[in-house]
């Protein structure tokens, strides 16, 4: 890719994040009505779900870069993996925090040991593990080790996504909002969609900048 085109793409990405974020915030705070049962606190849902999507995107990026690292041995994929792991952990923490705030406000429980919440907590622990491995691993072998670990981490994500559908209903607390047609008002769906797009575009911007910083650091170390 030509440098000037690359710079234009980067500018577009940042502008897109700003635009999508502002529109999502406008929809959430100025357009959607209060939810019938939970009231205004339900608005946190739009960013909670968006942050969860961003986490899945990050884990997907880590998985992809691990596979490409083993296939091509190009150092870029390892650099991307470092960035995606850090950003993934950040968004995972956001999901847990917003989930706890929403849970306490709506159902008076900070946390409950049911499949969806536990599997997301496990995902967060796995992402912490990947980052620890990057910090404390053997410098010569950490690329291979982190890639192997990333593949193992990625196989846990389908469990997180589908734990609500696959595991017994008696164990569930987490709401099956979309599937049970809880979003009756079409503005709810639009706000959720733009919330997701805003968070995912922020995630891509963060990964982009972090990858740039990491590649400069590696260049400095190799000189």
């Amino acid at each position, binding site marked *: 890719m030509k440098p000037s085109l690359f710079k234009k793409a980067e500018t577009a990405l940042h502008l897109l994040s700003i635009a999508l974020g502002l529109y999502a915030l406008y929809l959430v705070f100025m357009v959607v009505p209060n939810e019938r049962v939970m009231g205004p606190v339900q608005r946190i849902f739009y960013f909670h779900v968006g942050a969860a999507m961003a986490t899945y995107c990050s884990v997907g990026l880590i998985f992809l870069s691990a596979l490409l690292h*083993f296939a091509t041995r190009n150092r870029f994929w390892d650099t991307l993996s470092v960035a995606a792991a850090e950003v993934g952990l950040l968004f995972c923490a956001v999901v847990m925090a917003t989930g706890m705030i929403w849970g306490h406000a709506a159902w008076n429980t900070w946390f409950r040991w049911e*499949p969806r919440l*536990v*599997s997301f907590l*496990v995902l967060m*622990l*796995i992402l*912490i*593990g990947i980052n*620890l*491995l990057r910090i*404390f*691993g*053997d410098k*010569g*072998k950490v690329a*291979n*080790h982190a*890639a*192997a*670990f990333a*593949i*193992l*981490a990625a*196989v*846990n994500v389908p*469990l997180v996504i589908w734990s609500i559908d*696959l*595991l*017994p209903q008696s164990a569930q607390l987490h709401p099956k909002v979309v599937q049970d047609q809880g979003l009756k008002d079409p503005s709810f769906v639009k706000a959720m969609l733009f919330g997701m797009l805003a968070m995912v575009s922020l995630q891509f911007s963060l990964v982009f900048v972090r990858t740039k910083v990491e590649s400069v650091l590696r260049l400095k170390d190799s000189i």
Partner: protein
Amino acid sequence: MKILLALLRKDLLIEFRTKETIFVTIGMAILMSAIASVGVSAALLPPAAVKSVLPVLLTLSFLLSSTISMTRTYEYEYQDRPLQGLLMSGATPQLVFVSKFLTNFLTMSVGTLTTLLGFVFFLNLSIAQIFLPMTFIFGLMILGFVAIATLIVPITFSSRLRGVILPLLLLPLTFPILFGGIEICSSLIAGIPLDLSSPWISLLVGFDVLYMAIGMNLFDKVVIE
């Protein structure tokens, strides 16, 4: 097949001659069952409640003893790098993985069985009716745990933190296996017969197969320098 048997013989001979791993596992098993029993009796729990926490106690003891003892199985492979020699001599990484996996599975199974017997003895439990299904479920749990541990231990071995980082990396990955296993054991203790079509069994078996497949395929990437 001959190479696998030779590798297996080597690993089992090391285990039986040094007896390190097996002694540590059995020792930890007895210690954990004794400590848990003291705690349980101090809490003055009724027998039904004691029986219902058995799967959790057993899992915790198993996790603690296996995390400590699994690093021992790799000590010999890293002093003077005999593992590299093995790989150069014609043994494929997949065969090395399978032999390590089978040895660790044997050791962990012996340890877990001792822990279970320890709990039955110290807590005066009667689990005769559910003993076989429970050992089957724990066998499946150990299978998945050992598959993932056989891949993760070499990763942590080359890191600065070594033994400290092993539980941090290993335990989150074993959550689906533990979750499934504990749920099934709890329902066994509650009197519900073992249902092989239950989603928890699918979760357990699914992750066992997945981790074994991934472990076999990624082992060479992790150990070859």
